[in-house]
């Protein structure tokens, strides 16, 4: 039952996000648009490019969807509404999301297309930039909760949310999460302007539909992770816990879309430079501040 509820919440959030994304780009609020778009993709021919690496080409969109769903499986919507409350939940989400890289590399290498391949390898460079900024802020979150269990992390924020307790960590994690989801301005693997779609370029029909669904699901999973780690998860007055989790997750996801809409795409060398020269020292400072707060403040 829990599995069905969480999957429905994930699918519903992805649909809502697609509606809002369409609203922001076209100016029309059309709730049925994602459905029509999905049906149109199913109706189109799903072309297989010449001499592809067939295993990678077929597996990549599915793998991306699976890892996004696996990440969501360890994130609680309410105290009892979680598929698997693992003892290493905060680490597991890193493990699941590490395979986003594998899926993107497979999607890049698989179709035997130059743009796709450049997009795939670009994401590897992007990972070198953002990965430490995912792991180090989560370390500080786990330090405060004294646990890697995600429900314990949410419980540790009952009095004060982590966004107030460690705002620096929140900013770094939010930026890194956008880079992990390869949304604008970090959409280097799919850059429309210079790569003509990149890893998306060679996919059509049902395969493209799965790829798009996977990318939306990934945004929802990362927004949910941000909610669990920094926005107090299910905590909030009046409404039931699951409602707070969903509202916060959607708010984070929409803010990711909004930020992306008003910022120009960043160059990969600049992203790497800023992440390593500024981001990692700031993440270390965040860990030191949180450590001092834990020791000093009772």
């Amino acid at each position: 039952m829990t599995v069905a509820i969480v999957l429905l919440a994930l699918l519903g959030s992805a649909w809502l996000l697609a509606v809002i994304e369409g609203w922001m780009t076209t100016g029309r609020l059309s709730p049925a648009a994602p459905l029509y778009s999905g049906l149109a993709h199913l109706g189109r021919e799903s072309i297989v490019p010449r001499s592809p690496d067939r295993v990678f080409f077929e597996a990549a969109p599915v793998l991306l969807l699976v890892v996004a769903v696996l990440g969501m499986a360890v994130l609680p919507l309410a105290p009892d509404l979680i598929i698997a409350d693992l003892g290493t939940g905060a680490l597991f989400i890193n493990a699941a999301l590490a395979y986003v890289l594998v899926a993107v590399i497979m999607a890049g290498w698989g179709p035997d297309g130059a743009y796709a391949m450049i997009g795939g390898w670009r994401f590897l460079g992007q990972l070198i930039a953002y990965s430490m900024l995912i792991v180090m802020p989560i370390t500080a979150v786990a330090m405060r909760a004294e646990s890697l269990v995600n429900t314990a992390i949410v419980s540790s924020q009952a009095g004060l949310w982590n966004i107030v307790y460690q705002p620096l960590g929140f900013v770094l994690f939010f930026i890194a999460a956008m880079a992990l989801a390869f949304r604008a301005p970090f959409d280097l693997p799919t850059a429309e302007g210079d790569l003509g779609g990149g890893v998306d370029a060679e996919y059509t029909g049902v395969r493209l539909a799965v790829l798009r669904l996977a990318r939306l699901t990934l945004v929802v999973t990362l927004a949910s992770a941000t909610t669990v780690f920094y926005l107090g998860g299910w905590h909030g007055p009046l409404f039931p816990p699951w409602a707070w989790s969903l509202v916060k997750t959607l708010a984070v996801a929409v803010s990711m879309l909004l930020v992306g809409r008003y910022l120009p795409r960043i160059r990969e060398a600049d992203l790497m430079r800023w992440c390593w020269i500024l981001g990692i020292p700031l993440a270390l400072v965040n860990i030191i501040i949180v450590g001092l707060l834990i020791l000093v403040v009772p």
Partner: protein
Amino acid sequence: MYAQAFFVAVFGLAAIGFGVVVFRTSSMVRSALALLFSQTAVGCMFLAMQTEFLGVLQIMMMATEMSIMAIFMVMFMMDPGGLGGMDMSHQKRFSIGAGVSAAVVAIAVALLSDWGPVAEQVPDAEAQTRALGMELLGRSMMIFETAGITILTAMIAATAVAIPVKNLASKDNKEASE
């Protein structure tokens, strides 16, 4: 217990299967990712054996490491896609001999060792993680810190060795032009 043994066996066979694929394919990316999935299967074996932290850590670390290895293989091998029909294997007889002997030794160790009584109860994942943390930052701290500092030093040294060559070349060019 039987279900656990079954899953350990299934993931073990998957690890061997992907390991075989590593050598059966000519594509460097396929080879690297097959090695990744072989290591992931080993991580799943850890999970089946209820060592959650080690399993998740193995699954996480290998994704990044093997992907980085893949791009190095693409950069440095002559036929990274494996479409040129190049045979990149060598010393086949010696390799087969070494592989078979190593397998025989490993199986002999597995069968002939006294593994002691099978643990009926294991601590839960949280207790294991805590125990591992206490071990890493307690008794074994010096070993792990030394290993960590050594790796960091090697990384900085490798970068430092790579950079001066470029600088020296540009310096020489500058002097030559002067």
